[in-house]
């Protein structure tokens, strides 16, 4: 399952929030999480992967979770996105 966000932080995604996303994704061993933007898909368990997306304000970012706890993972990741002021849900 997946959710799409629009990046609203004017600095795009920085090391600090990227760290929070990776820390969250890594907590779940049974579920794989990915981030996809501009046709590039990376594992959310890699901070270098997330930074390599080069996300800027206005870009869309799709978070994808696959596995036993996919709903919980996606929920937690969305919380981080909103709490860090990174993005808003994109319809």
């Amino acid at each position, binding site marked *: 399952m997946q959710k799409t966000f*629009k990046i*609203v*932080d*004017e*600095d*795009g995604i*920085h*090391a*600090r929030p*990227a*760290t929070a996303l*990776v*820390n969250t994704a890594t907590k779940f061993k049974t579920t794989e999480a990915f981030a996809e933007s501009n046709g590039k898909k*990376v*594992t959310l*368990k*890699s*901070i*270098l*992967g997330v*930074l*390599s997306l*080069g996300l*800027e*304000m*206005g870009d869309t970012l799709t978070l994808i979770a696959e596995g036993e706890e996919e709903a919980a993972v996606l929920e937690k990741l969305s919380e981080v996105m909103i709490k860090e*002021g990174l993005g808003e849900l994109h319809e």
Partner: protein
Amino acid sequence: MNKISGIAASAGIAIARAFILEHPDYSVQKKQVNDTQAELDKLDDALQQSSVELEAIKERTLQELGEKKAEIFESHLLILNDPEFIDPVKSLITTESINASYALNEIANQFIGMFENMKSAYLQERAADMRDVSKRILKHLLGISQVSPAEIAEETIVIAEDLTPSDTAQLNRRYVKGFTTNIGGRTSHSAIMARSLEIPAVVGTQNVLAQVTSGDLVIVDGLAGEVFINPSEEIVAEYRIKQQAYDLQIAEWKKLRDLPTLTEDNVQVELAANIGTPADVEGVLENGGEAVGLYRTEFLYMGRDKLPSENVQYNAYKTVLEKMSGKPVVVRTLDIGGDKELPYLEMPKEMNPFLGFRAIRLCLDRQDIFRVQLRALLRASVYGNLRIMFPMIATLGEFRAAKAVLLEEKEKLTSEGIAVSENIQLGIMVEIPSTAVLADQFAKEVDFFSIGTNDLIQYTMAADRMNERVSYLYQPYNPSILRLIDMVIKAAHKQGKWVGMCGEMAGDETAIPLLIGLGLDEFSMSASSILPARSLISKLSTSDMKQLAEKALEQATAEEVVELVKATVSK
């Protein structure tokens, strides 16, 4: 003696002996190995040791500099364990039967290259983090023992090619009096760390490392961005005096940072800052700003190829309001046109751009642009204390028209079920003489005035402020200007409204005594002027300044006014 210039990265003056912090040779050779498992084990050991070190640095930074500064090392720890980084290194070792240090260097360089080629300046600087982490691992792989900056135990000035974030975090404030580097900029990590550690620093000197020998006497002037190597005794004496004066001033300003702005006889005024982007708010708070008195929204519209969307604007306004946490934020609606062009609007060239189709004149005509900005502002209004002001208002008709558009947009948002603050003050810039003269009428309808002195002076004196040949007519202390300011303040106070000033004059030390005397309520200036202004105001008595202002209004020339201020204030 030798003098080098660089970038002033962290304010203050330091005088001490040079300590050269050289980074050892990290060059690696490609070697074929038979036992790849041994290389994999070496890599694991190096990662383990690096991890222990980074945990210690993170802990130390957390204690000394706080959570925000420690976050960078949390990121470094994640890079250290990043499967996208470490897995390719391991597979390179096994598939090509090569040594761990070479494989690590190869993969790290790929990431460094990737960051260096990114569009965003921020992400380009992440190359430095990648280098820092890979050097740390290499150090263990190559068995290099390096003097850690943490071991420096005598008063020194550190000289280096560059300081990594981890180097800087380990500097001991007790011994490291200052540092200077060949590379780096004001926003590089080492510069930001230096400012939080309050260590004077000059970066980006290009060649300081080549010019200094260990033990040389060095002066780092982090105010001017200059470095002196083996200076003469006279220079040292001169800088000792500068250093003392600066330290005293800082101590005084620091005391004032969290205090209200009070005159000697305890009359309170508000010191605010002018900003252009949300990133400027940090400086406002660091300098004890009590409000944002002018948020120039033009920057949102410049340097791009189309108008900024409602959401882009909303986010910027919301960020500023939230960061100011309830303190007033005066946002000036779009002041563009004339000399400040937006190429994508394709406006025709004008003969007299300063007297032309600009600011509110343009906004009332191009309501498609104006309404988007107002909606963004209204939506953001619930996140703080928003005040809106219209620029270049010449007639009451313009103000009423602009206010009507604002109320329409507010109505629309409310009917869409979107929350809007009920307490948004609405004011105007006073920068056209007609408005200053008719201020008594305006004062009945606006919530506040903000006097824009740069334009008010240019329009009153009929002198183009871009034309150097008439620059002598830029006379903020001319009694004609003071009388206009006096009229505006009196008219506003009669209606119980407040008056601010957001031109350069508001932070000017000759003007401040006069403005206190005239009864100005809010002074908005560049953030770095706030603490000096608060210090100056604390030494002024309003009753004395009132007398001074009354006399000033009766002078004939600007020169006489300046003389009068000097004679009164220096007493």
